[in-house]
């Protein structure tokens, strides 16, 4: 059975239909890519699935249960966690503390409980700190565990974002442009991490990304969206050869001699795209 099932999802903002009757299903253990030109509605789709926005129509099921309209902080408890396109961190906290806040759901944070600094509370805090450190090691940034998040280089910030999102022990992780603005080495590092999420933690991943090389390398299946509608779905090979996808990205070709695919591999073009993606 599919882990995530989206049926006929539509999201309107006034007269604008940002997501139009999109259906997709993601199997457990899958790494799914979500691609499409700027303004295609990928992030809106993410926002609706993760509970940040309520859909105008359609249903979302997670692990067999209806989660349509469930707010984000409640959805997190069920194992659906997302990251954001723009680096969302706690900039004034250390790396370790950022990850520690991610463990909030495991903390038991009553106001009155905090007033009594009992040995049990302290032990619990130490356990959480150990767990945070374990996550920091898992994502491979333990050398910087005690630095302020604000002072990290860009690539590390994005990895830290994923580390924070691991706190609530997600079963489904929604990554919004995890490699936006990264250099080659950082992209590779992030893609290795995404694979590790599945291999070592059994996490199903859905990622929005403009970097085609990264998407093609890491994803099992890809869904392409244009003007809020799903226009193609399948393995990377199938989608990258799909004429509607190529047309969506590159426009119509006058002559059919040229190989249309190389442009989709281009790092520079895709990175420029991702900066102003709405």
């Amino acid at each position, binding site marked *: 059975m599919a882990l995530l099932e989206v049926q006929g999802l539509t999201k309107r903002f006034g007269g604008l239909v940002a997501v139009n009757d999109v259906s997709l299903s993601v199997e457990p253990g899958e790494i799914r890519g979500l691609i499409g030109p700027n303004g295609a509605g990928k992030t809106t789709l993410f926002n609706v699935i*993760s509970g940040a926005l309520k859909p105008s129509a359609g249903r979302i099921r997670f692990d067999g249960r209806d989660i349509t309209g469930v707010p*984000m*902080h409640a959805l*997190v*408890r069920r194992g659906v*966690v*997302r*990251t*954001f396109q723009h680096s*969302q*961190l*706690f*900039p*004034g*906290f250390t790396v370790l*503390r950022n990850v*520690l*806040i*991610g463990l*909030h*759901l495991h*903390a*038991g*944070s*009553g*106001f009155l*409980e*905090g*007033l009594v*600094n009992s040995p049990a*509370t302290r032990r619990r*805090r130490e356990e959480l700190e150990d767990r945070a450190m374990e996550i920091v090691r898992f994502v491979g940034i333990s050398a910087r565990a005690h630095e302020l998040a604000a002072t990290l280089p860009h690539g590390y910030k994005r990895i830290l974002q994923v580390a*924070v*999102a691991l*706190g*609530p022990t997600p079963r489904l992780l929604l990554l919004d442009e995890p490699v936006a603005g990264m250099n080659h080495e950082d992209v590779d590092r992030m893609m290795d991490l995404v694979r590790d999420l599945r291999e070592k933690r059994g996490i199903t991943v859905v990622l929005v990304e403009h970097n085609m090389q990264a998407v093609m390398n890491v994803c099992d299946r890809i869904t392409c969206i244009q003007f809020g509608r799903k226009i193609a779905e399948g393995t990377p090979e199938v989608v990258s050869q799909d004429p509607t996808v190529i047309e969506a990205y590159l426009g119509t070709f006058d002559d059919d001699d040229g190989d249309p695919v190389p442009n989709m591999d281009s790092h520079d073009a895709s990175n420029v795209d991702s900066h102003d993606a709405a």
Partner: protein
Amino acid sequence: MTSRLALAALLAALALVPLGISDQYVLHIMVMICLNVMMAVSMWLLGITGLISFGQAGFMFIGAMTTTLLVKLGHWPFWVSLPFGAIAAGLVSIPVGRLSLRVKGVYFFLVTLAFGEVVRGVFAYFQDPFGGWYGIRDIPPPEPAKLFDTLHKLPFYYLGLVLTLITCLVVYRASRAWFGMILWSIREGDLLASSVGVNVPGFKLAAFVVAAFFAGLAGSFYAHYFAYISPLVFTFQYSVSILVFIVVGGFNSFAGPIVGAVVLTLIPELFRVTGKYQMLIFGLILVGSMLTMPDGIMGAVQRWRARRVRSS
């Protein structure tokens, strides 16, 4: 270890030194410091979520009015009605918080400011039982009457000190516990916090209620200390001056609001002899402190300490 010793010494001094003070004016200033510290520390707890409430004087007024009516009309003993002032303020803050926390930033300032003015307006409009603009006089002092004699401030000082220490202890513990860490994280990034399961509106409301509760407690104590309350006392200006205590003391540490409240309560008194220039000098000192210590007195202290560590 040294900090524990220093704290013990400070507490001992706070408890013992006033015994040697016979000047009632000095003792009165010390009671005022207690009140201002309670207000500043409670507002600081809300402030670490990034929210500034300009309605704290309103909650103080509700606390003061509740205990006053309970004692004067209901003939309750002071010791029973005192916590009820705080509880009343805390209860009122729940619906007020639910409404006002829907908006952020300046809009939150405006809603809380309006709340404070509504409280004043309501108490000023209904002469019965709230006393109207004249306020309410002859609020009985705490029992036993022999001890709490309005002409002798020492027992009031000790009562104020105990209430202040309770406020400080609760707020300090809360700010250091997981609860406080989540409040800080909301200021750092509320979107990220909610994405990992933090119920952001719930935590903000909890901080709002705790801040109102202790403002109400301060108000309760105020009413029985001054024996007189009126809408002219719990003004918007007072809420602003609490914010000034926090900003001048330093937002980023627990000691900030305490230091700010102590220093800024003392400074106008030191310049009282200058008569009409008192407020002018006070203003100049405020501006000067903000220019030289943008992150407050405690921020400056921390930087000075860091420099000393590095150079040694």
